[in-house]
């Protein structure tokens, strides 16, 4: 090997000061006559200099105080009191909120608190200015149209109102009303035709109120800026159109430059068909349990949490007819049912989406299939679990109660399937359960990479969860 290639290999060690005296002299002698090695060394040293300049950076005391208070508050509360400084990314990534989001039984009613910086060159105001304007708003009323494409086609329109405490009232076309206190995770459903009220979560006397910050459809935009795309005429107004786009998701905002507020927002999400990722959803009917077959309940997980990763459906939500700072009567947002209504207090299924969710559905499947585990395709399809859920909960009891219990089970099943979808989009997931039987403790059913423990985790045939080294992992059959 010639000196040049030997020295090249020693350059990082030389820059790190880790060479013996003899090697150091050899490198120095070569550097004196080799431009290419000198340049390379200069770049290595530049990298080290940049790293050195990071070494001395520390967070100001004030930032540290705020960060510490945030975490102590977040860990201490049972009811989430969200600070207005908490950004969406922090909210959605915490399991507290993930499970809350999972418990919401309607597609797409999710909220967010944004934080955005960024600017756009030229005369058009930056989208940050639009968000700044929205942050000074105390209430808003708008129409929202949801179109879901694909096999489970869905299409509905609602009127939404948001008050100064961030409580949302949604009036659906068929007459149902939903009032949701996001800060306290309480949802009240009203069915005026039957004077019936169902409430998930319970108000308490010392409950803290939230703040107007409902810009759910803009929640993504804080992470990166929405960019000005073009001008477009909309209902006689020349609007500025801003677009934000990532894989599987696109948000377009039409802004009236006179008021610098949105007049229309379109939020599109797309399914990741390449990886065969699904947005888990399932409906069951009371008729399945001997009750009124016209009453059914659908659950889904993913519209908020999974969008942007493709754990979603092809879906468009369009928000329009905005009215800002409208006086809204407080009675519209009450979490107690109106007079004459019968209230049914419901308990939401609060378990988080985690590895236990997956164990739960593997167990359910195996118990009803003579100990066999589902195939990868079956594990991807909530419909295949439906007969098992009905079997498990349909008995001789009260159809109402059975239906309620089955609804919770639906939620648990969807969480298990969702857990799989998230691992699939991470790309470090393998399912090899087809040939394993329940109880076979030496065989792996599936494995994935777990970010929290920074290692591989696996579920074995006896449904125990174990840590695994990379070289122990079975390969795909």
């Amino acid at each position, binding site marked *: 090997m010639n000196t040049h290639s030997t020295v090249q290999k020693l350059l*990082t*060690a030389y*820059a*790190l000061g*880790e060479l013996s005296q003899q090697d150091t002299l050899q490198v120095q002698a070569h550097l004196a006559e080799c431009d290419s090695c000198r*340049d*390379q060394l*200069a*770049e*290595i*040293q*530049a*990298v*080290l*200099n*940049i*790293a*050195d*300049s*990071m*070494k001395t*950076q*520390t*967070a*100001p005391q004030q*930032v*540290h105080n*705020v*960060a*510490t208070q*945030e*975490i*102590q508050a*977040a*860990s*201490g509360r049972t009811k989430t009191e969200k600070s207005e400084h*908490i*950004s969406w*990314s*922090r909210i959605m*990534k*915490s*399991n*507290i909120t993930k499970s809350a989001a999972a418990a919401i039984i309607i597609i797409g009613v999710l909220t967010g608190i944004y*934080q955005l910086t960024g600017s756009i060159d030229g005369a058009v105001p930056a989208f940050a200015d639009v968000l700044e304007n929205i942050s000074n708003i105390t209430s808003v009323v708008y129409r929202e149209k949801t179109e879901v494409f694909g096999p489970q086609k869905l299409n509905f329109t609602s009127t939404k109102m948001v008050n100064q405490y961030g409580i949302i009232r949604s009036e659906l076309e068929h007459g149902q009303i939903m009032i949701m206190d996001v800060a306290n995770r309480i949802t009240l459903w009203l069915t005026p035709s039957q004077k019936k009220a169902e409430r998930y979560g319970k108000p308490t006397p010392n409950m803290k109120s939230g703040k107007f910050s409902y810009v759910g459809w803009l929640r993504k935009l804080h*992470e*990166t800026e929405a960019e000005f795309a073009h001008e477009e005429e909309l209902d006689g107004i020349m609007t500025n159109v801003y677009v934000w786009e990532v894989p599987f998701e696109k948000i377009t905002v039409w802004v009236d430059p006179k008021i610098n507020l949105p007049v229309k927002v379109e939020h599109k999400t797309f399914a990741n068909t390449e990886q065969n990722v699904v947005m888990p959803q399932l409906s069951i009917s009371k008729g399945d349990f001997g009750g009124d077959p016209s009453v059914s309940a659908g659950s889904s997980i993913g519209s908020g949490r999974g969008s942007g990763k493709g754990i979603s459906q092809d879906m468009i939500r369009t928000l329009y007819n905005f009215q800002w700072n409208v006086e809204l009567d407080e009675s519209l947002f009450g979490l107690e049912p109106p007079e004459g209504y019968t209230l049914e207090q419901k308990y939401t299924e609060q378990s*988080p989406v985690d590895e236990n969710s997956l164990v739960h559905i593997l167990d359910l499947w195996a118990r009803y299939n003579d100990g066999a585990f589902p195939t990868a395709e079956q594990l991807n399809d909530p419909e295949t679990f439906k007969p098992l859920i009905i079997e498990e909960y349909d008995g001789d009891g009260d159809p109402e109660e059975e239906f309620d219990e089955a609804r919770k089970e639906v939620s648990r099943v969807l969480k298990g399937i969702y857990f799989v979808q998230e691992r699939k989009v991470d790309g470090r997931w393998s399912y090899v359960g087809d040939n394993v039987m329940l109880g076979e403790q030496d065989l792996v059913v599936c494995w994935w990479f777990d*970010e*929290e423990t*920074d290692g591989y985790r696996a579920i074995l045939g006896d449904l125990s969860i174990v840590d695994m080294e990379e070289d122990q992992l079975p390969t795909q059959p």
Partner: protein
Amino acid sequence: MAELDKKDFDNLVSRHSRQVLNTALRLLQDENTARDVHQEVFLAIWQRRKRYNSTVNWGGYLYRVTIRKTMDQIRTMKTFPTTGLQFDHFHSGEQSQPAARAIAQEARQQLSRCLGKLADKQAEAFTLMRIEGLSYPEVAAIMECKEETVRVHLHRALKQLTKLMHPYFEKGGRR
């Protein structure tokens, strides 16, 4: 396995909060995002409080989780702007002027982005050794491996980073 109660947790936060926040800030160059990571790191511990090994070395564990979560964050961020950088400033150590400060900041962001492209262990070794300023024995204890292994990761990381940073250096008109 042991369970952390609220008091243990609060103690843990007050002991290690600064470390977590500083590591995140150094890598992200942005206070708000660093606070995001800080909160994520501690909330993850709180949510898993029933499953903790009572002998865990918290300082080391938190370094690793913080670096991992920060790298995840960096990987999801939009590309940093790359307008004609003058990296020669780093050779002279000249950082006092505002323009030079901005360039320095940009260079640090670029380095972080490149760190995000490395294998996890390499990014960890480089961050702990060169940005956190820890020693080989300390890093080996944190990464639960031999010092020699840390050395291998660090050298590979530095080689790889130099390669990844090369286009930026060139843009800065070094050649």
